[in-house]
């Protein structure tokens, strides 16, 4: 009995265990399936939520992904978004003669699509039985037609090319690349890696329309004054944005020429020149900044000639009065007066001032083609000649920087070609308060008074202020008759916004050119003197007349934006 009971108990126990075990297995299996489907459900639900939540990808799509990243290069655009350099895909079509089935039929079809091609030559090339390029950069229409022929001997090859749609207009800024997609000059060189690494276009500060108008005027006057070369720079004095930068002669980067002629250098950034009297403004400003003079400070008994060692320094204008105020020395462009002002400053302080405003020393710029500046010894003789812009050289770019600081209230700026996002960098004032106003006031009188040397630039409505500079070019260690004529203008003088420099290299007298004098003062036929006042000033005046309304309208548009 006991045994039975035990047996039953055992049986019961066993049975009970078995049932329990079965339930557990079944439950675990269902739980596993539940878990499995729950995980899949969860994954897809998360994916669905992710798809629903993700933002649209507005990044520019790379059109060349499908072709090759080897020749990838970002576009360069102007301030208004116009292409200055663009990488585009193109298709070349070639013929593999070994794969031609019906030669006559193929040639007939090709003649129909390309009626202007020389098919005698093409037939010769087919007979050579070697692959050849039939049509480079084929148009989309012709590509479609030729591929519809369905001939397996026709082989297409996709590649990319760098185009410069503005041709010569921005050649000195953009530069060019070689066949290996390496920038060899201009921004193509200095931004080489950045252009290769990213597809985002690089926006510049330059304006295509303004650049075109300035170039047109430079080219027009190059024919009139027969100058060897020319340069122009238009820059915002408050933020250093370069609106236009031109150097003539220029070149078409689409032609990929190997340029070795030194006359093709960038005359704004690379060319260094003795720029003459335009330096007198710096002499005047340095003395004002050191509080050594006031505009009305008198300089009496100024001689007509002084000597720096054995070299004479004399006045260009024989009628220059002997007694002049500091301001009148600048307005009438007195050489001896400027020397006297510089003597008050002293060589060390004058050199430091020129370095502070960026006229001397190395400049940081967005393109690599910048001039290497020598560290000049500033002895007494150098001081005297530098006071009126001789024995000292600089670039047009550095001259623009200097004049920008003189006219913007004395704040430091850096000229730039690449548009930066608005930054809240604090402006550093490097000139004393009031110096800028006094300099601009004197510069305005150079343009709008009879005594001034730049009356031809007194364009109504723009309040142009400026300074002329006529410098003889040194050739073989001696000054020659060839001149560099420069005019630096700042406008409007009541609230300076722009600095505009025109430089003409070796201009000649134009005997047939008719000058229309400003303020209804009649006309003059022929260039009276081969000086900046009759050449560079005329070019600048006529150019500002053309670009002025556009600049005024654009500054309004910017304000509204």
């Amino acid at each position, binding site marked *: 009995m006991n045994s039975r009971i035990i047996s039953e108990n055992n049986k019961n126990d066993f049975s009970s265990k078995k049932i329990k075990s079965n339930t557990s297995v079944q439950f675990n299996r269902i*739980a596993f399936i539940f878990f499995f489907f729950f995980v899949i459900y969860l994954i897809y639900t998360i*994916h669905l939520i992710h798809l629903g939540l993700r933002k649209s990808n507005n990044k520019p*799509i790379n059109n060349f992904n499908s072709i090759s990243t080897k020749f990838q290069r970002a576009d360069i655009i102007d301030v208004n978004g116009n*292409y200055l350099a663009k990488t585009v895909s193109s298709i070349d079509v070639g013929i593999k003669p070994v794969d031609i089935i019906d030669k006559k039929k193929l040639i007939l079809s090709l003649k129909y699509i390309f009626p202007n091609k020389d098919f005698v030559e093409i037939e010769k090339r087919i007979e050579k039985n070697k692959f050849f390029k039939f049509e480079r950069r084929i148009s989309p229409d012709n590509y479609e037609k030729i591929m519809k022929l369905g001939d397996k001997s026709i082989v297409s090859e996709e590649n990319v090319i760098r185009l410069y749609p503005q041709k010569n207009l921005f050649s000195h800024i953009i530069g060019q690349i070689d066949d290996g997609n390496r920038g060899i000059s201009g921004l193509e060189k200095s931004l080489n890696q950045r252009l290769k690494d990213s597809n985002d276009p690089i926006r510049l500060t330059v304006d295509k329309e303004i650049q075109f108008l300035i170039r047109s005027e430079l080219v027009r006057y190059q024919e009139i004054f027969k100058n060897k070369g020319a340069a122009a720079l238009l820059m915002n004095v408050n933020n250093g944005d370069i609106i236009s930068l031109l150097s003539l002669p220029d070149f078409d980067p689409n032609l990929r020429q190997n340029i070795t002629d030194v006359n093709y250098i960038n005359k704004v950034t690379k060319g260094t020149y003795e720029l003459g009297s335009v330096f007198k403004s710096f002499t005047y400003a340095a003395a004002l900044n050191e509080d050594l003079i006031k505009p009305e400070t008198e300089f009496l008994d100024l001689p007509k000639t002084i000597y720096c060692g054995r070299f004479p320094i004399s006045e260009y204008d024989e009628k220059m009065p002997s007694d002049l105020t500091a301001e009148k020395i600048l307005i009438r462009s007195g050489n001896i007066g400027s020397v006297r002002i510089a003597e008050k400053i002293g060589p060390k302080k004058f050199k430091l001032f020129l370095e502070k405003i960026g006229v001397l020393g190395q400049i940081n710029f967005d393109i690599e083609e910048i001039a290497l500046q020598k560290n000049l010894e500033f002895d007494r003789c150098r001081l005297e000649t530098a006071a009126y812009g001789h024995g000292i050289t600089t670039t047009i770019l550095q001259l623009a920087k200097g004049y920008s600081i003189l006219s913007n209230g004395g704040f430091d700026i850096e000229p730039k070609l690449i548009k930066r996002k608005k930054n809240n960098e604090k402006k550093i004032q490097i000139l004393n308060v009031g110096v800028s106003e006094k300099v601009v006031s004197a510069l305005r009188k150079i343009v709008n008074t009879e005594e001034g040397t730049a009356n031809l630039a007194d364009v109504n409505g723009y309040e142009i202020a400026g300074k002329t500079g006529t410098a003889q070019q040194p050739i073989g260690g001696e000054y020659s008759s060839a001149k560099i004529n420069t005019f630096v203008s700042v406008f409007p003088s*009541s609230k300076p916004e722009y600095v505009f420099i025109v430089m003409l290299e070796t201009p000649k007298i134009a005997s047939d050119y008719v000058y229309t004098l400003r303020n209804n003062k009649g006309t003059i036929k022929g260039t009276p003197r081969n000086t900046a006042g009759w050449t560079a000033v005329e070019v600048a005046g006529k150019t500002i007349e053309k670009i*002025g309304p556009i600049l005024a309208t654009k500054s309004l548009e910017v304000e509204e934006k």
Partner: protein
Amino acid sequence: MKRFILTLIIFFLILSTSLIKNTTKKIEDEIYNIKENLRSLNSQLEEVFFEYIYLSSSEKLLEFQLLYFEDQLIPKDISEIKLITTKHDANTIEDLNITKN
């Protein structure tokens, strides 16, 4: 009962998973199509814009002007350009200045 509920949930999970999977597939297909269309439209836009920039460049416009019009282009003096501002249906006319006011 417990089994029935579990089976129901599993059935529901299978159904909803297949539904969601189908939906995500459709959305992904749509995204792919839109992306491809955008790629080609973007490329077309760039080409057209590039052509437009070339054809509307100052150089080209002057060429067309010489070709199709006999009139000469006359530069405008800044004093001839006026700024019209409309406020409360009333126009105010001001001179255009080179300075930002």
